[in-house]
């Protein structure tokens, strides 16, 4: 993926977060707490669990649908980072060759089951995190974290990361463009050139950081980034967290797919 494409992806995620839907209007704290709960519950499942995880897809699907976030966009992002999860689990089938029956007459090695479990957990947690950003906006999440008690220093760092990511990537794009225009297809991917570009960007960043700090001091900065927003939690936020929490608990402690299966069998028989 080229730098430009990656940049437009981040930009799109950012623009989606300025929409106005039921999900976007929820308090950032409510969404942060619900997403954290979701991630903890999903990760808490034992390593051979696949079937019981499936009901959890309801959460990202619902958030995405209500928040007007295109499913294809999120799916593409999940696929783009999936190599990490694949590498984590790819050797499981070799390391864990014991066979288990997954359906009457079909047996595979237990490693394949745990590999599938890793992929499902990965898809669930990453899509939930992406949806959190796409429906809350990065500054919104930072405000939520600050009000949930994260130290001001961390939150300031995150906010600067967000603000200057765009500036830095645009600067990198200009440097790379200048290189490509004068390299005539030859050696444009040379490591030595790349190292120099990274060095240039680093120096420019340091200089910029100094100028920004000067601008902050000029306006009375003393260590905390003040924010004016004082959102109050509304009943709808509480309902959202409770409903999400209840749903996660139900799916965690009751084997929902199996119950549905036996219910269907009961109806058929």
């Amino acid at each position, binding site marked *: 993926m080229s730098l430009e494409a990656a940049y437009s992806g981040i930009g799109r995620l*950012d623009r989606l977060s300025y929409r106005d839907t039921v999900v976007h209007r929820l308090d950032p704290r409510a969404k942060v707490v619900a997403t954290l709960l979701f991630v903890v519950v999903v990760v808490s499942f034992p390593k051979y669990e696949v079937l019981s995880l499936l009901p959890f897809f309801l959460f990202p699907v619902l958030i995405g649908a209500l928040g007007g976030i295109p499913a294809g966009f999120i799916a593409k992002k999940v696929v783009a980072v999936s190599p990490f999860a694949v590498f984590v689990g790819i050797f499981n089938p070799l390391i864990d060759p014991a066979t288990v029956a997954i359906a009457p007459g079909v047996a595979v090695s237990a490693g394949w089951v745990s590999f599938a479990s890793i992929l499902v957990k990965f898809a669930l947690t990453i899509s939930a995190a992406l949806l959190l950003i796409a429906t809350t906006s*990065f*500054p919104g999440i*930072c405000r939520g974290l600050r009000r949930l008690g994260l130290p001001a220093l961390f939150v300031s760092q995150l*906010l*600067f990361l*967000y*603000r*200057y990511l*765009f*500036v830095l990537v645009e600067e990198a794009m200009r440097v790379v463009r200048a290189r490509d225009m004068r390299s005539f297809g030859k050696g444009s991917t040379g490591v030595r050139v790349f190292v120099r570009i990274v060095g240039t960007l680093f120096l420019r960043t340091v200089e*910029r950081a100094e*100028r*920004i700090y*000067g*601008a*902050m*001091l*000029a*306006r*009375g*900065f*003393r260590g905390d*980034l*003040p*924010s*004016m927003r*004082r959102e109050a939690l509304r009943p709808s936020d509480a309902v959202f967290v409770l409903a999400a929490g209840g749903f996660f608990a139900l799916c965690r402690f009751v084997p929902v797919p199996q119950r549905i299966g036996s219910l269907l069998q009961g109806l058929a028989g």
Partner: protein
Amino acid sequence: MSHHLLEFKDVRFRYPDGTEALKGVSFLITHGESVGIVGANGAGKSTVLLHTNGHLLPTSGAVTVGEVPLRKETRQEIRRKVGVVFQNPDDQLFMPTVFDDVAFGPLNLGLPPDRVRERVHDALRQVNSLAVLDKPPHHLSGGEKSAVAIATVIAMKPDILVMDEPAASLDPKSRRSVIGLLNSFAHSKIVASHDLDLILDVCARCLVIRDGAIIADGPAPEILSDATLLAENNLELPLTLQGRPAWRGTCR
């Protein structure tokens, strides 16, 4: 109103790497004056500006704002009086939204939320940018960024406004509106720029700085029409004073 005075008295400054950037700079700017600072690249314009609000402290000599001498301990007080707008608005706008950015200074001054909101709205109205209130800075155009950068400083209601190249890399219309904006402020103003037409439009007085020293100080129309003096400083006559003959050639 003596509290709007800004005085440099034989200010010398040496950067940590040994470069002597200012070699005895003296001037006095009184209430309501608008002063342009011009000079070649590296002459020391930016170094002078960085002394006006104590970002740099003189190696020797004295800077006085109102009755307050600039020292390490008085910097915070001086920063309330002198608002500096830096050249690159991306350095000036560091908060996630325009509102948060303009509110940053007033909040640091310890104003209550109602007053802060009022200040933000007033400042953005003054620069015709109320429409971008909730936008993140990276979604603004260059002209909008410059206007908002000025708003972030006037929201603190400084006595003296200091600007480094306020209209660099703006399209002509945005540049014109920045000039209109600067002329609408009653503050004392200091503007450093290579845009001599802008200086001519905004400033009544002009300082020429060369090699860390002031070599000319007088009415802007007089200094900016002195072709020899300008040429000696890598400058040239403002375009409005150049009188270009009408186009009579042919295109091939």
